[in-house]
């Protein structure tokens, strides 16, 4: 635990030691604002809730989370600092979790900084703040899912661009796993129960109720086990590929 904290602090500090943090936060805030007001028509709807804000988060994360995740391990391998990290008296799992949590908390900070939109909606009307809080938690949980996939992919390559592109593609497939685009492809040659299983992996389906502020235990378990699975794979890949 102590080692995880040490790695976590170093990682989180490194975001703010470079322009990465500031560029990311600014782009995140501009994009989420633009999507809420232009695509989501927050004002025109005439309703005091934040669903136009939360409904675009999957698409926002699709590109922004891989941008944060791509450097997690690829950079470490490229610069050779992985040799230092892996010869310190800590386990691979501790490094994976420490680095992951730092990136997740960083995304969380970006998410918290969208609070002016919450203030706006409270000024304009009387929204259900419990629903908004639940939706924030749901959104944060989904970001964690994207990030775990990205962290694992980042460990597979030294090249951050490759890590980014592959992560976007995999996240895209997970997002749309419940849509005809993905399902029709499998329907032709897979039995129905496997197609149903693939459909149940969809981020969008699991996020849909979370975004409405309904915290269903099944959705939470889905995202938590998804994160666990990808981080476990991440640990194995780091172990295998660290010296390549």
């Amino acid at each position, binding site marked *: 635990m102590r080692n995880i904290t*040490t790695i976590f602090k170093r990682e989180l500090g490194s975001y703010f030691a*470079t322009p990465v943090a500031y560029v990311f936060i600014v782009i995140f805030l501009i994009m989420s604002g633009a999507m809420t007001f232009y695509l989501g028509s927050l004002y025109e709807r005439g309703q005091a809730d934040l669903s136009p804000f939360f409904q675009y988060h999957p698409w926002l994360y699709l590109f922004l989370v891989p941008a944060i995740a791509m450097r997690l391990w690829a950079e470490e391998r490229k610069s050779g600092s992985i040799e*230092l990290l*892996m*010869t310190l*008296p800590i*386990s691979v799992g501790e490094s994976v979790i420490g680095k992951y949590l730092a990136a997740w908390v960083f995304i969380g900070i970006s998410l918290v900084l969208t609070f002016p939109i919450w203030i706006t909606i409270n000024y304009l009307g009387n929204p259900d703040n419990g629903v908004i809080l639940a939706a924030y938690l749901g959104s944060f949980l989904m970001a964690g899912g994207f990030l775990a996939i990205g962290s694992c992919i980042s460990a597979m390559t030294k090249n951050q661009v490759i890590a980014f592109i592959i992560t976007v593609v995999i996240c895209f497939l997970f997002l749309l796993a419940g849509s005809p685009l993905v399902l029709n492809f499998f329907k032709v040659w897979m039995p129905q129960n496997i197609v149903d299983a693939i459909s149940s992996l969809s981020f969008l389906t699991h996020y849909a109720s979370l975004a409405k502020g309904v915290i269903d235990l099944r959705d939470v378990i889905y995202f938590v086990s998804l994160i666990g699975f990808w981080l476990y794979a991440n640990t194995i890949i780091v172990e295998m590929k660290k*010296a390549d």
Partner: protein
Amino acid sequence: MIKIKNLSKKFGHLTAVEDVSFEVKPGEVLGFLGPNGAGKSTTMKMITGFLSPTTGSVEVCGFDVSEKPIEAKKRIGYLPEGAPSYGEMTPIQYLEFIGQIRQLSGQNKIDRNKEVIQKLHLDKVLNQSIDTLSKGFKRRVGLAQAILHDPEVLILDEPTDGLDPNQKFEVRELINSIAPDKVIIISTHILSEVDAICSRAIIIADGKVLADDTPEGLRSKSSSDKMDDIFREITSGHIS
């Protein structure tokens, strides 16, 4: 104390290290010599637990590196080839980070920080990001990191590479000053360095140990009494 038994490492069909065995006792400074690609770095990476051996075993202070990696790593200070570090950090932040991982605390931590900063002359660059430092300073930051926790075993992969003659001299002095009760393994291309700091030298080429002797012993084998000649005779004799 390091015990290496029948250590081999294969990368696919390529054999990087083949059946290497040796022991190093406290107080010994072992120079690891050999042409580029001889297997020096690979052997060091196996000692420090970064690479796992294909066959054979490494024991550091009684702990098998494959079976008890954390215990072994606690007792090792390691400067990897090229002295990698986290470029966006400043040396003081970096030492703070390493100190936390090495579980230094309280007065001991303050004293150790002070000592390595003074020994490696880092005081002027403490608050400058490592990325912006010269090659010599980067190397010294890497060395500071390796000796911070006063380890029983010190593995240094080309510690004086990229340093100017004065800095080289200082690093050699530093190694000499901490040598008496430690196990130290140094890889180097610079043969005069072996005479200056090593109590023993191993010459390795194509992954095999070709000679294992004191610098004087090695020199006595050569007709010309020069380290360069003996190195060339041993390593090229093997290749042809």
